[in-house]
């Protein structure tokens, strides 16, 4: 019998060629598993959690009762984390509306860099298989393509682009990144401009791609280079490559762009893509799907018509990244309860003095400060079935459990909580 493959839920690539088996120290991920997958499966395999109330092991009923009591007492609850699968999100949203909660994903700030651009200018994008089969020029921003997406190069950039003609594939690295992550024989142009200068670099490339008269000397100075380091020539060559591409792809990962107003740099790049597409084909690939960010947003967007962060206060739904972003709401002391749901990752839960916290979290998660209630839940693709959106936004994959566990799903846990709440009065 051929091996039954597992799909890895731990990054946006959703590699579906893993073989996961029980081992002595947890789950053993092999097949296509990358280092991160091995670590995550192994950590989950070893865990045998129990619900906890203020750090003390408790029975499931006791923990649910306490969580329901806290939820019932809250006037201004916030729901955060949301690195979850579709099923969990489908359960969370009706609860959010019932509680009048403010709801946000832990990675909203990164994701919002792209959403801003979509909403305020638009974007031309592509997906993994197009990159694999078509891309003859690949421009890589930052280093998330190797750091956050371990098998991106192997799966999308190493296979020959069969529709690209005979020229093969060329690479441009805009920011410092590990050149050795790319195929050794690949033609590669490195601009290596510091990430903080991306706005100027992106604007310069957009202007040059449009054939506008930009002084390369001034651009080089603005980018912190000098007349002798060849940056001017490399900028010019980069623009030639962009225009010569038959099907170019520009890859970035919004989480990398950690400088203020990074969405403007993305917008400049989006502008460049528009210009290039007047003559040839060139598409963006905003790599995402880390920690379920695309999934949480997609479900919220289709059900409510508006993305995250959102407020369900007062029986309405409102989208405002400025007012409803969870870190701000918490920092201003506006929330009186935090419900943190994350069945995929183990990001730290914000600790706010005097704000009771309920965590529906992965089985292996630990805490610096014990939350009021911790309810361990199944991880989709490990203990339970689930669905996640892949990092190119179009494909949703089914996550088949690799073992039969006894942990309830986040969705089931939320429904159990909701059932314990007083019936809605309206």
């Amino acid at each position, binding site marked *: 019998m051929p091996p039954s493959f597992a799909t890895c839920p731990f990054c946006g690539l959703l590699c579906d060629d893993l073989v996961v088996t029980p081992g002595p120290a947890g789950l053993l991920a092999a097949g296509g598993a990358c280092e991160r997958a091995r670590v995550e499966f192994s950590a989950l395999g070893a865990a045998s959690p129990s619900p906890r109330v203020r750090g003390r092991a408790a029975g499931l009923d006791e923990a649910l009762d306490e969580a329901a009591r806290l939820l019932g007492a809250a006037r201004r609850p916030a729901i955060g984390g949301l690195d979850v699968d579709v099923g969990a999100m489908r359960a969370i949203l009706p609860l959010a509306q019932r509680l009048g909660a403010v709801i946000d994903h832990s990675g909203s700030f990164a994701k919002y860099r792209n959403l801003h651009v979509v909403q*305020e200018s638009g974007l031309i994008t592509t997906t993994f298989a197009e990159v694999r089969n078509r891309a003859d020029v690949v421009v890589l921003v930052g280093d998330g393509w190797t750091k956050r997406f371990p098998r991106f190069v192997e799966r999308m950039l190493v296979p020959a682009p069969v529709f690209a003609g005979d020229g093969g594939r060329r690479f441009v690295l805009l920011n410092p990144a590990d050149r050795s992550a790319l195929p050794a024989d690949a033609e590669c142009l490195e601009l290596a401009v510091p990430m903080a200068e991306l706005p100027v670099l992106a604007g310069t490339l957009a*202007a040059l791609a449009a054939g*506008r008269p930009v002084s390369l000397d001034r651009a080089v100075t603005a980018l912190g280079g000098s007349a002798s380091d060849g940056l001017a020539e490399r900028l010019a060559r980069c623009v030639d490559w962009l225009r010569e591409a038959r099907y170019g792809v520009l890859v970035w990962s919004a989480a990398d762009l950690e400088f203020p107003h990074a969405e403007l740099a993305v917008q400049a790049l989006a502008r460049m893509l528009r210009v290039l597409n007047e003559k040839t084909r060139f598409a963006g690939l905003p790599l995402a799907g880390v920690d379920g960010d695309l999934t949480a947003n997609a479900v919220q967007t289709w059900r409510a018509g508006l993305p995250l962060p959102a407020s369900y206060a007062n029986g309405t739904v409102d989208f405002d990244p400025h007012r409803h972003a969870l870190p701000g709401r918490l920092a201003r002391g*506006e929330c009186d309860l935090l419900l943190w749901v994350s069945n995929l990752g183990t990001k730290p839960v914000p600790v706010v003095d005097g704000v009771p916290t309920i965590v529906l979290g992965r089985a292996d998660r630990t805490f610096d400060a014990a939350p009021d209630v911790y309810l361990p839940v199944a991880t989709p693709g490990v203990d339970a079935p689930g669905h996640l959106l892949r990092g190119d936004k179009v494909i949703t994959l089914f996550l088949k459990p690799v073992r039969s566990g006894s942990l309830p799903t986040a969705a089931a846990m939320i429904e159990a909580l909701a059932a314990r709440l007083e019936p809605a009065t309206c």
Partner: protein
Amino acid sequence: MSGLRLSLRARPPARVDGSALLPEKLQGQTLDAIRRIALPGWNEFHEVGELFEVSGEATDRLQIDQLDGSFDRLGALATAGTLVLRGQAGDLVGEGLRGASIEIEGAAGDYLGCGMRRGRIEVRGNAGHFAGSGRAGELQGMSGGTLLVRGDVGDRAADRMRRGLLLVEGDAGDYLASRMLAGTVVLLGRAAGNAGYLMRRGTVVLDQRPAQMLPTFNANGRQDLLAIQLLLRSLGGEGPRFSRLAARAGGFERWLGDLAASGQGELLVSF
């Protein structure tokens, strides 16, 4: 003092939408009726009388005192009358303003005058980020009226601005006039980094040369620009610092950009 006066006496537990507190809506109502107006908070409504001392008489002038930043959208969509805000006025003051006058004797939060179309807002202190811009997810910022900030503005002032006038006596943060579509900005203080980023059209008058000009703006020589001189002269009434600029400015160093966008905007540095 004439008009209606609200003085904040209780801090709400979470931000409150104050957009119902418009002179045009309250005018002519009894104080008791005004005390019973419910303002939406987070899963609760707060009666005006619970939060504010209410006094005076509801005319076309409304003054709100002791503000602490916990009210959003004060003066939003106002079409007429005068709203005087004292203290920390909160975010989104004068959002989508359509004609009234808002005077802030204190500071304003983020998104001051965002999407305003007509009317006038004057801030004695500083304003936060995105003054004169537009709401997140929308294409256009302020599209008319006058927004005057005596202090500093934060980042992204006049972002996506489409028409109207933004006057700033103090300094501006990063990305002044980012993605500006049209309209006029006059800045007397210094602009921080990347002024004019992705600017498409419009005019930004700078009394001081920014530390660095984006390489996607090209110098277009020194110009007299009569229209700008006239504009500056017309600003005499906005205060002595504007009239001094009008008197002093012999001409302008003109920079055109942003070439990363359609490149028809101008940054004018006075000399």
